[in-house]
């Protein structure tokens, strides 16, 4: 008897779904180890996390508010990874999108709310998109690896933002606190429920997921993305515009991350600050991988990751267990889903015949 690993021709959707769910659960189970080592009860911690994330209308609103930017950064990673464009710079693109929103939406001109919100969103999308088009172009023109460049740009962008909010766009009314001037009321996203934080950005995120789903399945661009992400040499040989497709993907990917930044400014904070994102860009990679790069799956994966963060915050306040536990769960789910991907690509079985023949 020996173990045989053979490629699968086609993995059923149910298997992919199963892998994602098992990966998320496995990550939750694995963090029981550090919790036990810290001398605490994992069961209590889990209970408090679930209660903190879904236990009341308020906590549900907090979870969905947290999921909103994660849906968009998740989609940003999903669409790029599908084309095998490694955008690890969603964090920077998010901040640039937020910056663009503040630049056009803080009183430069007046428009009625319906229009103003659109203008702010378009500005954020384009700014974030260009932020990714540049590394994609550098890759094509100079062969410079986009992974390292997008990673390094995250640090450049955050310093650039700090510089601006301490200087030209600093809010003089913020009592010396480094934050930007606020958006005008017309640019603010409407709240979905009175007295809750959940806002219009969630609608933007879900709409983006649906649009992307249609684009990937039903349009020429979707076909090109799949071809470029599959066998790039073959796509080029077949006469597909590989470079142009990658630039389009870069614009969409960066743009979605930019929209996440717009949402945080227009929906949550009202102004730009250097702590706008607690790593939404990086978590977006985990969201996309958990979703198997599926746009619709991204919405559910984002809610899972958001629930882990919101639940862990609330659990941490009650028990004193560090809320870095949430980051641990998220990191472990990425690694687990990656391993799960192995079982989607390959079938592992015991070969009894081989033993008899030998």
């Amino acid at each position, binding site marked *: 008897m020996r173990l045989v690993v053979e490629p699968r021709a086609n993995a059923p959707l149910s298997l992919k779904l199963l892998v994602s769910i098992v990966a998320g659960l496995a990550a939750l189970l694995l963090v029981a180890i*550090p919790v036990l080592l810290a001398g605490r009860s994992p069961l209590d911690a889990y209970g408090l996390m679930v209660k903190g994330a879904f236990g009341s209308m308020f906590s549900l609103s907090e979870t969905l508010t947290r999921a909103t930017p994660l849906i968009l950064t998740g989609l940003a990673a999903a669409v790029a990874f599908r084309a095998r464009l490694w955008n690890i710079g969603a964090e920077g693109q998010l901040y640039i999108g937020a910056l663009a929103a503040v630049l056009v939406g803080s009183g430069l001109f007046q428009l009625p709310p319906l229009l103003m919100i659109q203008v702010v969103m378009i500005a954020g999308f384009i700014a974030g998109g260009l932020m990714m088009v540049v590394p994609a172009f550098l890759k094509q023109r100079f062969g410079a690896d986009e992974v390292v460049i997008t990673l*390094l*740009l995250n640090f*450049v962008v955050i310093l650039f933002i700090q510089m601006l909010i301490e200087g030209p766009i600093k809010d003089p009314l913020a009592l010396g606190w480094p934050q930007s001037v606020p958006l005008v009321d017309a640019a603010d996203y409407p709240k979905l429920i009175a007295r809750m934080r959940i806002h219009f950005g969630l609608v933007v995120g879900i709409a983006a997921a649906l649009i992307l789903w249609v684009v990937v399945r039903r349009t020429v661009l979707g076909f090109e993305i799949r071809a470029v992400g599959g066998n790039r040499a073959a796509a080029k040989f077949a006469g597909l515009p590989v470079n142009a497709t990658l630039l389009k993907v870069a614009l969409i990917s960066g743009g979605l991350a930019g929209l996440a930044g717009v949402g945080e400014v227009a929906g949550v904070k009202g102004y730009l600050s250097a702590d706008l994102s607690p790593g939404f860009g990086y978590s977006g990679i985990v969201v996309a991988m958990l979703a198997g790069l599926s746009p619709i799956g991204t919405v559910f994966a984002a809610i899972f990751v958001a629930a882990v963060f919101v639940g862990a915050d609330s659990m941490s306040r009650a028990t004193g267990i*560090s809320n870095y536990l949430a980051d641990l769960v*998220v990191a472990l789910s*990425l*690694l687990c889903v990656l391993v799960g991907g192995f079982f989607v690509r390959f079938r592992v079985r015991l070969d009894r015949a081989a033993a008899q023949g030998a």
Partner: protein
Amino acid sequence: MDAVFDILLSVNFWVAALRIATPLIFGVLGALVCERAGVLNLGIEGIFVAGAMSGWMAVYLGADLWTGVLVAALAGAVFGAIHATLTVILGLSQHVSGIGVTLLATSLAYFTYRTALPNVSTPPRIIPFQPLNVPGLSDLPFIGPVIFQQTSLTLLAIALVGVVAWVLYRTPLGLAIRAVGDNPASVEAQGLSVIGLRFGAVVAGSALMALGGAFLTMSAFDAFFFGMVNGRGWICIALVVFASWQPGKALLGALLFGAFDAFQIRLQASVGQIVPGQVFLMLPYVLSILALVLVARKADYPRALLQPWFKGQRH
């Protein structure tokens, strides 16, 4: 212009340059060993954090400094083994696995630190490595203070450049490691294990990376701060390309980088009133990007970099 020369000719400037370069030397060497074997290790940023935290924590809990260094290296090796299991044995995406290892190592380090020291407001300190005083050598003009009055870890970093170069170019093991990153089929044809060589290289390279982190908490500073690694790992990944995967050039690249960083700190002191501080802080990252863009076309990547290998694979 005179001011610029004054800076470049001062001993303090070069002492600072080498000190800033030291963690990068460890990091670039580690990344180089992994990539020479065909494996990109984006876990580097997190491995720096894990090395910085674990080495420091060991000393804080009573171990001596060299034991702390060993603990850091072991922590790096463990995360290297995770990355190698996913990318070398299972053949999964090196990009995604590396990011995963960075997230895991970082969050585990932060979680451990917070759990072990729940109520500290100012980070506790240890007694770090002290500047050496080698009789004779430390008194040499210029070279003495610049090299021999650094801490032992800096000398270790420079020595390791020689060791890695010797292993890679002068031993059968090094030949096999280089071959496994260029043409794994040829290595398998020799009857050697591609998987074993790559796994070993990633583990060893990751241990080296962790020493870069350990230098931060045990020599450059005396405490562990959140966010103290601050992209140094990613800069190392850019520097490897700049150094075209050669240990000697890696040392040179790290030194140039350290010199530039030390220079901008001094420049900041003189023109800091006019130019916002963030502009200077951006320079290291911008410089890394520029270096990468300039050399990328000519870069002689290990040919099998990023390509998984399965036993018995043909072609």
